């Protein structure tokens, strides 16, 4: 770079110096220009002022309410949690398994009377009770587990 610089070029180089190291020639030309040009010295001073003041701004974090509303919005708009459609063959298979379980439970619990204690139950009946309890727990917790898992999987890494 040779010769003298115009004010516009000095301004642009001033901005570029924030992004890359200027060459020795550029630096000399700028120094020579700044020594003689009040306008460009003002530009450089204002630039420093702007950067310094922006660096001093204390930016707030998003409120908990905003984060909560955003999460709710995301859940509401996500199609796979709202209307997750199961394939037909899974529904048929579940229906058949449920029907067999129901028949098995009826047979296993046929001999059980209300006055029997847990220890008096025959093995088949005890197994049936365990299956009932297991299903109840699964039905209760499955939606919570699924929602949490999907939310974790779908949210970008940094948002967790």
């Amino acid at each position: 770079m040779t010769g003298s610089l115009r004010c516009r070029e000095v301004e642009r180089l001033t901005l570029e110096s924030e992004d890359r190291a200027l060459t020795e020639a550029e630096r000399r030309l700028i120094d020579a220009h700044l020594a003689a040009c009040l306008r460009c010295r003002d530009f450089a001073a204002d630039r420093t002022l702007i950067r310094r003041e922006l660096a001093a701004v204390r930016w707030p974090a998003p409120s908990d309410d905003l984060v909560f509303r955003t999460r709710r919005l995301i859940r509401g708009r996500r199609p796979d949690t709202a209307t997750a459609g199961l394939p037909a063959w899974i529904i048929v298979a579940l229906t058949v398994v449920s029907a067999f379980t129901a028949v098995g439970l009826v047979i296993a619990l046929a001999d059980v009377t209300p006055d029997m204690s847990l220890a008096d139950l025959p093995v088949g009946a005890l197994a049936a009770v365990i299956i009932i309890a297991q299903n109840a727990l699964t039905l209760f917790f499955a939606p919570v587990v699924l929602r949490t898992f999907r939310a974790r999987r779908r949210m970008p890494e940094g948002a967790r």
Partner: protein
Amino acid sequence: MYRTDVYRFTLALAGDARDAEDLFQETWLRAVKAEPAGPEGGGREAKAWLFTIAANAQKDLLRKKRVRRLFLRERTKAISGGTADADPGWDTPGQAGRDEAVRSDVRICLRRAVARLPGRERRVFVLKDIEGFRHEEIGRMLGIPEPTVRTLLHRAVKRLRRELAEFGPGPERPTILEEGRP
């Protein structure tokens, strides 16, 4: 961790807290929708990706606002100063003496001036001066050539200087000529 970064960016872009909240929500909605196409893992790349989404969302929101103004014949906030006087969401420091008060004035003027920058210039300026991205990164994020980034930044700084001179607290404005060398 990025939610604070995204919120800061949307605050700086939107100019007031209410618009920033809309932009924040829109950004995350789009991010979740576009997540499979996003970068693997976290880091600067993920942050840049989120900011790109936010910048695009702001572009769309500005466009919608312009259309709404056209149809509803709203007086533009820029003319009435509405944007400048709305809740900025930027924290202004406590009044700890004369120096701090003057600096606080400068910061208020600066906030107003940034809010008045045209969309493209504002996006470039915020990405550079507030978020600290390099020209090359900003070009990639906004899909514009690097020389355009430099031109937009130059324009933004010149416009800010004009605005600051207009709003500035006059003789009380701190002079920093001695440290003004680039």
